[in-house]
């Protein structure tokens, strides 16, 4: 078998394993309503990680334990400002406005699946750049797919070297 064809089929194998793993990781669940209260402190959020399913209606209430923090949720056009000792917080949508509006909760539907981090967007002290949490919207297709790619690539490499004549 010519080298180029072998490599092509190996790559195809790797990609297939990846895709299968990705789809296998897909769980189908009925959309629910989810409520979360996230408390920000220097320098982490609590809870640190929240998991929802695609299609869920998510409601998030934010509070701060000590100083003013931000809450910038990747991929959802959400940026909030949270002040300590205050029952409300402020929300803006970065693509639409620079101004914040006072709100009591954030509501959105988890339309996109994947891993989205929420980060602090207001300098709150020394470790501010590393202050972040994770929102997982299942099915997090990329994760099992990349695991599949790793397994497929490993097998493909070993097979290719096995077939090589010294």
């Amino acid at each position, binding site marked *: 078998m010519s080298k180029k064809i072998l490599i092509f089929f190996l790559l195809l194998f790797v990609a297939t394993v990846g895709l299968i793993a990705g789809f296998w990781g897909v769980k189908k669940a009925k959309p629910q309503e989810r409520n979360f209260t996230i408390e920000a402190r220097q320098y982490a959020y609590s809870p*640190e990680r929240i998991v929802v399913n695609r299609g869920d209606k998510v409601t998030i209430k934010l509070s701060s334990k000590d100083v003013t923090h931000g809450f910038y949720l*990747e991929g959802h056009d959400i940026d909030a400002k949270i002040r300590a000792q205050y029952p409300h917080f402020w929300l803006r949508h970065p693509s639409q406005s620079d101004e914040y509006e006072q709100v009591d909760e954030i509501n959105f539907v988890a339309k996109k699946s994947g891993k989205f981090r929420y980060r602090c967007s207001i300098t709150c002290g*020394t470790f501010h750049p590393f202050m972040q949490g*994770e929102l997982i919207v299942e099915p*997090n297709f990329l994760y099992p797919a990349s695991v599949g790619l*790793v397994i497929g*690539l*490993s097998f493909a*490499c070993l097979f290719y070297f*096995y077939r090589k004549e010294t």
Partner: protein
Amino acid sequence: MIDLFEKIPILKRIVTLRVFPYLIILPNIFFFYLLLFAGLFGTPVGNRNIIVVFVWILWWAILIAVMVPFGSRIWCTMCPLPAIGEWLQRMTLTRVRPGETIRGFKGKFFGLNKPWPKRFQNIWLQNIGFLILACFSGFLVTRPIVSVIVLGGMIVISTILALIYRMRTFCMYLCPVSGFLGLYAMTAKIALRRKDPEVCKSHRGVECYLGSVKGYPCSWFQNVCTMTRNNYCGLCFECVKNCDAGNIALYWRPFCSDKEIKGYDETWKAFIMLGLAFVYSVNLLGPWGIFKDWVNFTESGKWLGFILLSLAIVLLCVAVLPGIYWLFIYWAKKLSGNKEVSLKNLFIKYSYCLVPFGLLAWIAFSVPLIMINGSYIISVISDPFGWGWNIFGTANFSWKPFFPNWVPYIQIPLLLMGLFYSIKSTYEIGQNIFSDNKQLVRSLIPITIFLGAVTLVFLRLYVG
């Protein structure tokens, strides 16, 4: 493999200019001076102070993602930290002072010019130094004053060392950056090598190594006639200035061409770098507040946690990771069925498998950092000290991540590429150890499993 000096003749003309490294070091002296000023007199808020933003967000990302894989140790060519020491040694900025201060070498040197003690002529000191810095890395990247202490300290130490020891002793044996630059430079696409071995054989004199009227001896103690790896070549191009026969080429070559690890010090560096990529991904880029509290112990008060964490980091890099790797090496030897191959030799030679993956894991760590926090670069150039300046009008550019949704699509291919090159390189190394291809591939299976497992750990952290 192309010789860049032949492809781009102006390149050779530039590096043979006596004024050459000085010309590119000068802007960096300016920047470092500015950064040190900012670190002392600027705002204590890290992300608004140019020293933290430029060094730990901008320079670090460019170094690990561009300079090392494409340019080998090109940073060392332009590094301002040892420059003052070197200029004091040579008592000149751009000229060559003829004389014979060091026995056997050409060139007049100021200072004591002692040889570095033989027992420290390895990178163990750099390994230790880098681990210590890593434990305090939380402070290093968030507090401008700590960056001043470390970078300023490196300038002071390298200058003092330059007056006591020979040439670039600091760079070779003490600089923490040099430790990993040397290891990862093995993957680099450029390499300075001698062209035709016959020319060197019939050439009387070793000007490239010992110096001549045209140039100083190699400050890195490397003999380019016999140099086969990038590890300790600081790309100062002094040898190119010295070589009468023009027998030195700057090759552009495939990624991961240098594959030989020579010794436990380099092996342990590979463990330390991989372990730290994991540790930083957990502590700094992870969501877990407890680790940040421990890392930030002067503010959180959790000094006990800090001690435990530092111990865990050191043990992971120095004992746990090498231990797990050793188990896989033992399995590799058993599986191969080859009884003659030395376990020690396999342990050291195969440890290169951590180099391509380690580098790509570090790039996968650093690229998101600059994408998420790169907007600070834009605001800080207008207000470098946080004093309320607005030189270029961008001081009020607000923080926003650049395309954060692309990050996993960048990290996954990088990790896969690292995995591929690591497996491929280990196979190529094994060809010099195992004569039988089947034995070789069998020995590769445990290594592949080990590398695959490490990749999965990083995947879980980044996209899981």
